[in-house]
């Protein structure tokens, strides 16, 4: 006889209550519908919010994160319960780690109200990363408002805007699920506007991103840790008595092991030497092009006039003059329309008369060489007029090229990149374009003009010099002799070795010059203020010295952080 429980065994009341409706339907049910089974399985997946030992968001990612990044996400969610300081060395992808945490929380319905506070220059980069890599919708908070659409976008705010009203009141008036603050070392001073903002934000999960959670003073670390885990390091008095006074440097602190043990409860730090992230080299070349007489005369006349006008100009006029200076450094075709707009028709005419600037000759020669070698080339310019002029010249030279710029529709952008990937050897592109596109199949870049903002140079490079790139990246900067760009490049190369920096280090250095350091604005101010070129050169030297100091300071800080939060 078959032995089981007897059929008349009274099923437990709880079981009948729970399963009764299913049993009733089973009695009526003719059979299992495989389509319904599949639908219910998928519904279960959508409904599930498993423990954090299961990663839900991986299927939504448009890239493959590194193992250490996934491990960080799990550590933050499981052990640190969503409040952490992500302190990886620069270039290891703190943004990716924060995005993974955010994405995972979103998938679980735990992060409908998410705020990312970041330096102004990085808002666009965050938007790009969150949307393209994590498929998370974003919206930018401007003047105290943001578009809280039905798709619950992640709100992006620049630190500069968020620490002032009206945006400040708006963001501290909201109860957030997640707040991510990039470059969080700027929050260390609790009395600063940024520090006060961070302490006023109300959120369940908090991620602070910084490669340098401590700089010179031990108190820096205390302040940051206290934001994430109030009380973890005790009261200020307890902390000082255990480890050192407010001004104790990291090299003189006491009980390092105990402090490390505490900070590791809320801090993750990876170093380049610990993780297997290898990027190819960057091989940069500055190509000084001697302009023709007409070009040189135009540039000299134009910049002299700009310097003269600039001293008495209103802020908006100065902005126009700065723009003119940059356009002049790009190409005569780029500067001519703006010259006409400001009424400098004589110069506009002279610019229009320059048929082909020397930089284009150089570009065409280089393109031919690369194309003959079967290499793809990405040519960058900051200006649409330069792009159009380039497109005409390149076409006339019989070199197949595609054009990419911000005015193209998304579909046209896709088509253009696909064509470049397939059989077009050259892509002529403006600054804003190319973001988030996979262009790693190309490893040659030519800058037709040089952005004055070094971060833009870095971003251009980042299009090719990224994970997945298998060749050394060749970069040629075409610069006309005697231009402001030539001087800028000299400063950036000689003082901070711009092109040899690791991805992300530039931002660390620029952020150390002054709180709101703006390289482009500093250069223009120095140019206008200088009596002559020699004085301008001296000012740029001073600026370069500031950058060099910032670089030294950054390298020293990196060592201090390792001492405090690195491995034993």
């Amino acid at each position, binding site marked *: *006889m*078959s*032995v*089981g*429980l*007897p*059929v*008349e*065994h009274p*099923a*437990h009341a*709880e*079981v009948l209550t*729970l*399963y009764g409706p*299913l*049993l009733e*339907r*089973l*009695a009526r*049910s*003719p*059979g*299992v*519908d495989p*389509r*319904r*089974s*599949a*639908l*219910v399985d*998928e*519904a*279960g*997946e*959508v*409904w*599930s*919010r*498993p*423990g*954090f030992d*299961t990663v*839900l968001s991986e299927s*939504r990612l448009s890239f493959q994160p590194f193992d250490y990044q996934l491990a960080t996400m799990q550590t933050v969610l*499981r*052990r640190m319960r969503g409040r952490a300081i992500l302190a990886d060395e620069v270039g290891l992808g703190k943004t990716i780690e924060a995005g993974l945490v955010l994405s995972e929380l*979103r*998938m*679980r*319905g735990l992060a409908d109200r998410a705020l990312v506070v970041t330096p102004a220059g990085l808002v666009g980069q965050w938007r790009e990363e969150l*949307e*393209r890599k994590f*498929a998370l*919708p*974003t919206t930018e908070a401007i003047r105290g408002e943001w578009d809280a659409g039905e*798709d619950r976008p992640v709100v992006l705010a620049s630190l500069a805007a968020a620490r002032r009203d009206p945006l400040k009141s708006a963001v501290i008036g909201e109860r957030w699920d997640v707040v991510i603050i990039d470059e969080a070392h700027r929050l260390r001073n609790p009395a600063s506007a940024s520090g006060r903002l961070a302490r006023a934000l109300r959120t369940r999960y908090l991620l602070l991103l910084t490669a340098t959670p401590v700089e010179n003073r031990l108190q820096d670390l205390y302040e940051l840790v206290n934001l994430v885990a109030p009380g973890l390091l005790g009261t200020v008095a307890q902390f000082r008595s255990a480890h050192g006074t407010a001004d104790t440097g990291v090299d003189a602190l006491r009980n390092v092991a105990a402090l490390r043990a505490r900070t590791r409860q809320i801090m993750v730090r990876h170093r380049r030497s610990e993780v297997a992230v290898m990027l190819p080299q960057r091989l940069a070349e500055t190509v000084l092009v001697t302009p023709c007489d007409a070009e040189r005369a135009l540039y000299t006349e134009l910049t002299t006039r700009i310097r003269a006008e600039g001293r008495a100009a209103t802020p908006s006029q100065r902005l126009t003059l700065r723009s003119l200076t940059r356009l002049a450094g790009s190409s005569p075709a780029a500067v001519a329309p703006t010259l006409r707009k400001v009424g400098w028709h004589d110069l506009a005419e002279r610019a229009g008369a320059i048929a082909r600037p020397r930089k284009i000759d150089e570009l065409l020669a280089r393109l031919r060489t690369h194309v003959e070698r079967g290499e793809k080339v990405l040519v960058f310019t900051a200006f649409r007029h330069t792009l159009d002029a380039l497109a005409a010249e390149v076409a006339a030279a019989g070199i197949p090229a595609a054009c990419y710029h911000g005015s193209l*529709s*998304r*579909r046209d952008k896709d088509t253009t990149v696909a064509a470049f990937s397939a059989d077009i050897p050259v892509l002529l592109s403006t600054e804003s374009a190319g973001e988030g596109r996979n262009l790693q199949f190309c490893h040659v870049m030519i800058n037709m003009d040089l952005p004055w903002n070094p971060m833009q140079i870095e971003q251009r490079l980042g299009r090719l010099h990224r994970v997945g790139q298998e060749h050394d990246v060749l970069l040629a900067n075409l610069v006309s002799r005697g231009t402001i760009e030539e001087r800028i490049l000299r400063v950036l190369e000689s003082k901070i070795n711009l092109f040899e920096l690791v991805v992300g280090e530039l931002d660390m250095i620029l952020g150390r010059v002054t709180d709101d350091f703006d390289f482009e604005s500093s250069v223009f101010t120095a140019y206008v203020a200088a009596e002559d070129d020699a004085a301008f050169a001296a000012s740029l030297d001073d600026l370069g010295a500031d950058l060099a100091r910032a670089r030294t300071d950054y390298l020293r800080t990196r060592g201090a952080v390792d001492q405090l939060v690195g491995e034993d």
Partner: protein
Amino acid sequence: MDPGLRFWLRYVDHCGGLTEPATDGTLVVLPPSEAAEFDLPEELVVTSDPDVAREDGVVLLTTGHPALIRAADAALTGGDIGIISLTAPTTPAPTMAQLEDKVREQFPVEHGRIDVTGLPVRIDRPVLRVGALVTYTVSAEECYQERLECWVDAGSGLPLAEHDIARLQRASQPEAPVAAPQPMLAAATVALEHAHRILDTAANRRQQILSSQASEAHQQERAHARAYYDDALRSLERRRTTADSDRAELLAARAASTREERARRLLEIDEKYQARHEIRPFRLHLMLVPGWRVPVDVRRGPRRYPFTFDWLPALGAYAVQRCPHCGSAASLSASKARLGCVTCLPGAALHTVPASP
């Protein structure tokens, strides 16, 4: 495509709506009732790409969107219930000699031997597949939802081993749907209790794992609260010892109320971290597995204990059996008085057999 959106499109199809790939996403035509339910227009284009949604004005639907959650909830409430009757084997039953060899091999009997005594009889052995969603509440702030599933042999109430489940899933070639005979439903009802116990045990185990992640926070919060109140009480005590009698009385009363407050606070913290789970079943399959019931005698010397085993071709094995005396899944043992198992017969060697061969 985002898995959430993929599910939603399938759900729309299931509800009688239409979906069709479009250039910028998927064109969807919703039945009016579903459009009202999801608060969406009857005709729309949806995507899971935020870039496409922003540039092309397409509706963004990704996991976490309320419309997807509502659809998932509706699909789960509808459940997945039914009977699967596996196709009967077309090959003839094994010979009696083969059946005897296999039963002796699979069920060694202490102090006894199994002899097949008659021709096998065709049967359908019921197996239950039960799926449930489990909500784990680890603390007042932490809640997880996971799925659990178990397959239970209704005859024995024992769970099936993974390899048997895999074989049954491969063998699922349902014949035309049949209504289950009443005895089968009754057996299913009883087996459900076993299934529920298995699910509940698994959920308890999982709950402990999930709670362990919160226990550090729990201990920390407790330690903070204790330190705070201990400090307050020490301060009150210090002041009381040097105070005059009226003031000392007042401070003593304050200390008493602080102790009460501490007890309340610690209780609150413990309640906040009280873990529990809730099971919500959504799947119930009754699978009828064709087989042969084999009559046997379990012999010890001249004593014979009649018994049966079910040979299931889909598993290539006999169904698991419980002890006829105590219901244990341990090895059978034949004593001079009765057939039992190594756990219920005195003097029998105690060793358990796996849940299934």
